[in-house]
């Protein structure tokens, strides 16, 4: 029985990305565009989606837990550039916990707005998100408040009964300098069920492996690889602000931006204290569809 469950978990873990990647490959056969993404999975920088482009992304978060079964959280993102200063994104999230079940854990809708017209020494971006999720969510898309490893040990059957409506706000401060990107995110979130404000942070730095572009089209040129590191964690809540009873992570990452529009990310993540998961493996694949908005409009209008 255990073997069957392990097998089905593995099958599921493999089949979801396979189906998604096949769908994206089919889309990719029709449209080409090159994305230029940083390797962050948790932190955000000030680079927004190009106007009219839709980026479809799949991410996995594979984790082990002390005192509990391993899990595979996964989510799909639909990121659309409404204008050059506004990007909106819809998430669908789920997870499989080994020896338990696979559950849909909710939706998120986020918006990022760039208030300043030009590039400055530090570039702020305002972020706000609405989350409608259940207690079984293990995507760990951000770590905030007093989130600790033991919170994730509640069995799916119980955790999924808890419904969470949450608003999340971030101030993203980011800079591109001599090929490097440096970013800092301050997080404040409010569970609408009379839970105090919770706080968190994320820091990131990244740089392409080569700054100059190659004189020929290539997939493996160093300019297409960006290496980086991010660090994130909780900062307590309104009544107990600080580092006590919080978890923190350090995650080196690598992204491969293919000229065909595909992006692949991998990010081994290490817990920095006893409250953190010891190890998480995050990875993701994305495909950018250029001119998506224009194509949709032309379907309804008949012409652009």
């Amino acid at each position, binding site marked *: 029985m255990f073997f069957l469950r392990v097998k089905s978990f593995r099958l599921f873990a493999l089949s979801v990305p396979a189906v998604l990647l096949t769908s994206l490959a089919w889309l990719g056969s029709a449209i080409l*565009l*090159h994305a*230029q993404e*940083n390797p962050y999975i948790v932190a955000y*920088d*000030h*680079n*927004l989606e*190009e*106007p*009219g482009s839709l980026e479809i992304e799949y991410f996995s978060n594979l984790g082990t837990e002390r005192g509990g079964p391993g899990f595979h959280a996964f989510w799909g993102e639909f990121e659309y*550039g*409404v*204008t*050059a*200063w*506004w990007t*909106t994104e819809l998430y669908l999230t789920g997870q499989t916990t080994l020896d338990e079940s696979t559950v849909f854990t909710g939706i998120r*809708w986020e*918006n990022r707005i*760039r208030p300043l*017209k*030009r*590039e400055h020494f530090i570039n702020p971006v305002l972020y706000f998100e*609405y989350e*409608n999720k259940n207690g079984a969510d293990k995507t760990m898309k951000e770590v905030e408040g007093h989130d600790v490893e033991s919170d994730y040990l509640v069995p799916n059957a119980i955790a999924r009964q808890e419904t969470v*409506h949450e608003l999340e706000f971030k101030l993203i401060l980011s800079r*591109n300098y*001599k*090929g490097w*990107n440096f970013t800092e995110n301050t997080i404040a979130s409010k569970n*609408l*069920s009379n839970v105090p404000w919770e706080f968190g942070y994320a820091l990131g730095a990244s740089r*392409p492996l080569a*700054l*100059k*572009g*190659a*004189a*020929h*089209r290539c997939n493996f040129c160093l*300019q297409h690889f960006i290496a980086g590191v991010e660090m994130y964690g909780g900062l307590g809540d309104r009544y107990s602000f600080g580092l006590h009873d919080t978890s923190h992570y350090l995650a080196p990452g690598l992204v491969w931006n293919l*000229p065909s529009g595909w992006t692949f990310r991998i990010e081994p993540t290490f817990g920095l204290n006893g409250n953190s998961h010891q190890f998480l493996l995050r990875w993701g694949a994305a495909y950018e569809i*250029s*001119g998506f908005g*224009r194509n949709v409009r032309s379907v309804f209008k008949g012409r*652009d």
Partner: protein
Amino acid sequence: MKFHCCCLTGLLLFAGLALALRAQDGRREREPKEKESVYAELEKVPEKDRQKRNPLAKDPDAVAAGAVLFEEHCEECHGSGGMGGKKAPSLRAAEVQNAPPGAIFWILTNGVVRKKMPVWSKLPEPQRWQLVSYIKSLGMAPAGSDPQARP
């Protein structure tokens, strides 16, 4: 509680929709004006930045590398060979070709976000200069070949 959450979700969705529609309407209203003034952004570049020289001007690979980058990032809007497209103007217009390299670099770095031109500061500086080299190598389009000028 459920009622409040439903109200809040509805309100957020409505606000999002309203913002999206406003952005679309704003675009439609501004379109004719934009076409006239889009090159005017080059005139707004600070003098210090206009004076910047292309450090890759003598790099024999800069134009070829710029062409690859242009195809990957710019062609979708500016059209093949920078001839202009439905979303963005021709880069072979006199206003662009006569502009100093520093001005084009500044526009790439800062974008014109209110007029749909994204910020390309995420491309490292050498790649932006390679793009400038390629754009300057295009030269002016023959009279009457600008697709935006066609009826």
